[in-house]
């Protein structure tokens, strides 16, 4: 039973009371590679990128018109209504997407893979801090992470960097080759338009090599130059939009040669001849194959599962799996499953608010929280897809383990218990979820509770439940 508890909590997202303890925990984890559904029915209702792009284009057009006809337009109250409706629609889409994410994590049969989806979405973090990203941020996870979570790292990297959410978030849409057709014309008219190195830098620092991965400022600039021309069509905004082919769907990735900095580039000592969109693609492929990337990715994965200071041997094993398989992700996950270090009984990691919320709702046998989970996560200090930093939420105990954070979990536990339908007996639930792992101190606190509800709340904030 003990290994099953580890599999369910450390690798998975916590047990459900009705879930039978897997007899062969390793096999249970491996089988999830076949059972994982990249697009389960929970996602049926969420907005598509075409619909989002159309709504944004509409809104920008309205705002432009409004600016041009200042005063001559509808009365101020009409304008406000439109703005309020636009704001509300964005929040609704966002809540719907967070709800879908949660429900797939609550109800699907592959919680280990769902955990990995959340891990990668945080590795390739975007932050929904404005009206466009609020709508697009979740789609990056659904469209670029989920389809590739069991594929190769190189493919996930490319899908992410070509996703509208990333291109918008790291200002790639604004970046223009100074010597491109568009850049030269703008300069001729005395308007300075040029390079923005935000995406180029974060690809190297955060997405692939890692900050000590052996690149310098010149590499950042060269990658940024190669990336010019990578943009999103159909938003009705952004330089060079008139060049976008009318065939392309709104919200899709497009390459605009008119914005692309011409010439061959040099990245990490290697030459890349001019190849249009292919130039930066080749760079991304080489970055994915770079030993520093293997090291960076392996270290982050090890930290996620084995704690803030993962054993060096574990990291090395993951690096080897990455390099020997050409970055095939299931091979790396298999190396995690095969690592003795991850099967120890002592807890290795303090759960993030998201992990805690999902495991708490699984323990309470809940299947839905579509409207409430976005606000709930925000109150716990981890607003989904809004880390306000391209580095994502820190994956460290020190970040989440604070006195205030603890108070919020106690408040949150009480709220979750209050909305649970048929609350279980907390003593039986504790035994079903953790078996022998429950300490006498926790069991005593639970069994002395004044009500089953209070006992459940205590179970959810017990040390056993807070750590994994």
């Amino acid at each position: 039973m003990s290994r099953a508890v580890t599999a369910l909590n450390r690798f998975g997202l916590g047990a459900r009371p009705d879930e039978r303890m897997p007899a062969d925990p390793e096999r249970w984890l491996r089988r999830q590679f076949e059972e994982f559904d990249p697009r389960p029915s929970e996602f049926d209702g969420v907005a598509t990128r075409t619909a989002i792009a159309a709504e944004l284009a509409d809104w920008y057009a309205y705002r432009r018109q409004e600016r041009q006809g200042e005063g001559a337009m509808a009365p101020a109250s009409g304008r406000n209504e439109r703005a309020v409706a636009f704001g509300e629609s964005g929040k609704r889409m966002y809540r719907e997407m967070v709800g879908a994410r949660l429900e797939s994590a609550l109800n699907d049969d592959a919680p280990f893979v769902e955990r990995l989806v959340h891990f990668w979405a945080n590795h390739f973090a975007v932050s929904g801090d404005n009206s466009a990203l609020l709508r697009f941020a979740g789609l990056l996870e659904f469209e670029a992470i989920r389809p590739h979570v069991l594929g190769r790292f190189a493919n996930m990297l490319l899908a992410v960097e070509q996703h509208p959410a990333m291109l918008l978030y790291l200002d790639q849409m604004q970046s223009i080759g100074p010597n491109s057709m568009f850049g030269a014309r703008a300069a001729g008219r005395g308007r300075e338009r040029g390079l923005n190195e935000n995406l180029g830098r974060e690809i190297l620092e955060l997405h692939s090599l890692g900050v000590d991965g052996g690149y310098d400022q010149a590499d950042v600039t060269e990658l940024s130059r190669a990336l010019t021309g990578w943009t999103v069509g159909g938003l009705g905004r952004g330089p060079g939009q008139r060049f976008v082919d009318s065939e392309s769907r709104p919200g899709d990735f497009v390459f605009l040669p008119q914005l692309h900095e011409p010439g061959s580039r040099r990245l990490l000592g290697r030459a890349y001849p001019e190849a249009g969109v292919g130039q930066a693609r080749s760079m991304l492929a080489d970055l994915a194959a770079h030993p520093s990337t293997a090291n960076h990715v392996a270290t982050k994965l090890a930290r996620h599962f084995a704690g803030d200071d993962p054993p060096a041997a574990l990291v090395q094993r993951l690096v080897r799996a990455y390099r020997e398989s050409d970055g095939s992700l299931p091979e790396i996950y298999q190396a995690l499953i095969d690592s003795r270090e991850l099967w120890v009984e002592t807890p290795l990691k303090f759960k993030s608010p998201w992990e805690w919320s999902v495991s708490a709702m699984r323990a309470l046998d809940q299947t839905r929280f579509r409207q409430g989970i976005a606000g709930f996560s925000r109150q716990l200090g981890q607003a989904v897809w809004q880390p306000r930093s391209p580095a994502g939420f820190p994956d460290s105990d020190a970040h989440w383990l604070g006195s205030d954070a603890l108070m919020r979990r106690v408040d949150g536990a009480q709220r979750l218990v209050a909305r649970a339908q048929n609350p279980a007996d907390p003593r039986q639930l504790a035994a079903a979820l953790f078996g022998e792992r429950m300490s006498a101190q926790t069991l005593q606190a639970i069994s002395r509770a004044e009500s089953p509800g209070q006992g459940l709340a205590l179970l959810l904030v017990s040390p056993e439940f807070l750590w994994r």
Partner: protein
Amino acid sequence: MIDRRAFLSFAGLGLATLIMPRMALARAATEKRFVLVIQRGAADGLSTVIPSGDPGFASVRGALAEDAEGGTALGEFFTLHPALANTASLYRDRQALFVQAVASGYRERSHFDGQNVLETAGTGPYRLADGWLNRFLGLLPPQDNEAIGLASAVPAVLRGSAAVSSYAPSNLPDANSDLLLRVADMYERDPVLHPLWSDALETSEMAGDFSGNLRNGETLGTLAARLLSGPGAARIAVLETGGWDTHRNQRGGLARNLGRLDATIGALRDGLGTVWRDTLVIVATEFGRTVAPNGTGGTDHGTGSVAMLMGGAVAGGRVVADWPGLRNADLFEGRDLRPTQSIYGVIGGALAAHFGIDQGRVMRTAFPVAERGAAMEGLVRV
């Protein structure tokens, strides 16, 4: 059911042992307060304390040079950004001082590494596990070393062996007091959770039923003032502000953000009342931004920036700078303001004078390994 605030302020039952010792120790010894405001994301010091008198200024800054219009003249050479109205009035009252061209020892351009170095004062990112402010706490007498981070999690600068707490208001319904007490029982023997929980109970009592969004500048200042006033209050607070990473369309975004910071400072001054006299506020960022604008109306990651010192304790009304210049040859790596002053020298010098502790001890303890330069003299009235 009594609510938890009421319950805690009675403090008569089993919980008394948990919260009484600290309250009992609190006495009106020194009234010194220190507030650190971290600008996360690399704030543009050149648009904050603007070197409008530099001969190269207008041409190299392009459209960003317009930030100086309508700003407050800080002597002949510098201009304060117009969004900083409270700050300007503090400057006129000689309670604000700016140090230009400062930086930590970090010379790369990653936010996350840069912030880590700013906060830990290691020789590189992640070389030291504890923050300089936590190490500094060890130099203060026990009744004067209560420190709090206004965030859900403790910021790196405050992490370390000295006990600190963190707080941010929440809109979740409060858990009832009986549950809180039972949680305390359950954690009693847990070496990690027990001290955290004791702090959580104490702080939630101090803050009262405060609710609000800490991204609102004024709210942040008001809450900080509340946690820093009254008996048993914290003496040291760390505030975090974000949104400084202005890669595009910098002018509007930066003005809004500076306005927010200025509102925080104003609310802090008003909320602290007479305690403001004994208060030192330092505003610092991980590094500056490029001198020239980029292709999208913004600036990219740079090096030298500005540090701001405010409060009744500050010997203000001036800008301190060993000005490096803005000509191409003057710039660090041909793109950034060259730093001429260590941020640690500024902080260490100010803290030593403010708390009346030997300068050498402060520098050795808080900044044991960083290339820190000499402690700067005369920043604080003593």
